[in-house]
């Protein structure tokens, strides 16, 4: 069975499914072939009930004299053995010719719907008990793993409704073969992490979690956004073949371009890495990146459950800066909010989190907390290679307040005789049209800017990048985005400030020639993408890049821009692929 989603991270993976959370009582439908099979399913169902009954009775016994506990367990036992429900499930298996899991889940869904409309809140609350019993029965039927992710023993494909970024942070490549999720878009945070880990991912599959059973074999094609559940022999063979070719290409790329990133005509180009976690520095050094163009700090806050200790922050910034010497490290202050880590900062649900309380809006609202991070970064700046970057600056007065806050922190450090880099460069992310349009007013306050193409694209095109229904409108090659990049570079250079690009666009081989052509000074990409991007840089001359960039500004659609770049480089870079979508007619 083939499912199509959004390709989020390149690569091919084949392996067993691991369902991360089975909160929902929904299970895949499998049609039965014969009455004998239906009888078999009924037997499985009855066995599951007996097994759950046994479990519940054991729990009840262990409760001893705890009356309330025993009452709850007795209630669950009554639910489990309810004749009406049992009859309905059996009927569903026999007349619908479906598997027991599916029959149980549909029957219980009907029951829960009835409960949900009951007037008595006390009875409505019993839905939780129905779920509890249902989950236990389904777990007996399928043997669903409940273990936490860290207990994952065999490498598997992680299947989830959505992945919590903090959960994915602890994953190691090799442990997880790929991500497959219902939610998410091309540039959601989970996607970015999958790329950082270098594992394939397909997101935005809408309801794949209800179509996959534990231990189903999955093929994840992160290039085209396909997921094949329980593939045929032919499909397996085909994809194994592609996978090995892909892996060969990957390792080839790794070996192919040692040394700095040079264009075809030998011009040195600055190629840096985006990192999430300090230990990624090792890989970044191996890849000979020209620095860290974006050090995201949101994770630090989560990983250190201790809270907001200045020392914890300092230790990490200090270590990364020291390890990277003499190459620059751009530390971005917290970019909480939007789709990232709302924990702890929630001031209630927001209707539009991306237009809401996020990034420096939070920081300026809580200057005392924010100063802890600023102080830690400044202290680590003694190495001389740290640069500080503020996300989501949309108003010049925010920049003034940030400048004043930074000054306060610096004065405090000076007063306490704590050294820091007086000349530390300070920059901002350019990620809203507002910033682009008023950049001339902002530039006097900064040393550099870095274009966050993900947010810039979503705010410019008014597309929620996490919404699968509109994700295909999300296009960083849209003329509105390209023209803004051009504007940013021209304006910044005219004021003597340098420009980086740290969004996903910098890691898209087809975008690289354009960004070089616009005159961008630095690209920063996920470590796993560095070989690809380096290779792309190597097949483009500065002249051709300028020509492509210039032409792109008068092209009507993003698709045609991609086709333009493709036609330039296909001869020198035959592996380069256009997305499957790019072949759609009408572009």
């Amino acid at each position, binding site marked *: 069975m083939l499912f199509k989603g959004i390709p989020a991270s390149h690569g091919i993976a084949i392996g067993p499914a691991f369902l991360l959370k089975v909160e929902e009582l929904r299970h895949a439908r499998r049609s039965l072939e014969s009455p004998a099979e239906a009888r078999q399913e009924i037997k499985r169902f009855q066995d599951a009930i007996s097994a759950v009954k046994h479990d519940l009775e054991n729990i009840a016994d262990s409760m001893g004299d705890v009356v309330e506990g025993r009452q709850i367990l007795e*209630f669950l036992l*009554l639910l489990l053995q*309810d*004749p*009406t429900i049992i009859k309905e499930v059996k009927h569903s298996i026999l007349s619908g010719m479906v598997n027991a899991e599916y029959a149980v889940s549909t029957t219980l869904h009907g029951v829960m719907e009835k409960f949900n409309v009951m007037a*008595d809140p006390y009875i409505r609350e*019993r839905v939780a008990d*129905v779920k509890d019993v249902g989950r236990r029965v389904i777990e007996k039927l399928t043997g669903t793993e409940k273990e936490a992710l860290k207990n994952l023993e065999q490498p598997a494909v992680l299947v989830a409704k959505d992945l919590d970024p903090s959960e994915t942070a602890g994953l190691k490549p090799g442990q997880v073969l790929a991500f497959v999720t219902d939610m998410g878009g091309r540039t959601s945070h989970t996607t970015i992490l999958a790329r950082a880990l270098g594992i394939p991912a397909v997101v935005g599959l809408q309801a794949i979690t209800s179509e996959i059973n534990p231990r189903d074999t999955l093929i994840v094609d992160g290039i085209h956004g396909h997921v094949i559940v329980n593939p045929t022999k032919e499909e397996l063979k085909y994809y194994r073949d592609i996978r090995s070719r892909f892996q060969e290409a990957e390792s080839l790329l790794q070996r192919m371009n040692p040394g700095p990133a040079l264009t075809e005509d030998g011009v040195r180009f600055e190629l840096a890495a985006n990192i999430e976690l300090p230990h990624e520095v090792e890989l970044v050094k191996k890849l000979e990146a020209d620095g860290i163009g974006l050090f995201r700090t949101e994770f630090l806050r989560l990983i250190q459950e201790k809270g907001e200790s200045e020392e914890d922050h300092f230790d990490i910034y200090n270590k990364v800066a020291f390890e990277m010497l003499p190459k620059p490290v751009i530390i971005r202050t917290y970019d909480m909010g939007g789709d990232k880590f709302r924990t702890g900062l929630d001031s209630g649900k927001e209707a539009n989190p991306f237009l809401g309380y996020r990034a420096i809006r939070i920081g300026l609202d809580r200057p005392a907390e924010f100063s802890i991070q600023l102080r830690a970064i400044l202290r680590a700046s003694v190495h001389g290679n740290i640069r500080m970057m503020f996300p989501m600056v949309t108003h010049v007065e925010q920049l003034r307040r940030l400048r004043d806050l930074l000054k306060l922190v610096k004065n405090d450090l000076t007063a306490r005789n704590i050294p820091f880099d007086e000349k530390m460069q300070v920059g901002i992310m350019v990620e809203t049209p507002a910033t682009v349009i008023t950049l001339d007013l902002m530039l006097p306050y900064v040393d550099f800017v870095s274009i966050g193409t993900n947010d810039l694209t979503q705010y410019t095109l008014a597309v929620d990048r996490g919404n699968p229904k509109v994700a295909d409108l999300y296009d960083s090659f849209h003329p509105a985005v390209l023209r803004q990049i051009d504007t940013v570079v021209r304006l910044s250079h005219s004021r003597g400030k340098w420009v980086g690009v740290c969004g996903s666009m910098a890691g898209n081989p087809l975008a690289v020639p354009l960004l070089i052509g616009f005159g961008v000074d630095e690209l920063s990409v996920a470590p796993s993408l560095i070989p690809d991007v380096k290779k792309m840089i190597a097949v483009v001359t500065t002249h051709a890049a300028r020509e492509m960039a210039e032409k792109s500004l008068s092209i009507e659609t993003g698709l045609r821009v991609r086709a333009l770049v493709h036609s330039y480089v296909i001869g020198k870079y035959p592996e380069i692929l256009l997305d499957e979508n790019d072949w759609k007619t009408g572009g």
Partner: protein
Amino acid sequence: MMEKIVTVPNKLGIHARPAALIVRSAVEFDCDVWVESPTDKVNAKSIMGVMTLAASGGTAITVSADGPEEIEAVEAVVEVIKSGFGEEMI
């Protein structure tokens, strides 16, 4: 076939715990047992059924049974309801 009418005497009516008491009493007998409110008739051996009846305090309930032990079953279930489930009465 045997049936009796009884009024739910407790304030909170037949919520989860009383439903469990009714079911536990009904399953003891070798016969079909039903409880019926003015709007719905459900299997008294089904916890789901009895709960979805959602009979509030003061509702008139018809208890009926059919089978070898129908007399005892109806008596027993009526007694459980009359007792008010050990809760505060109306």
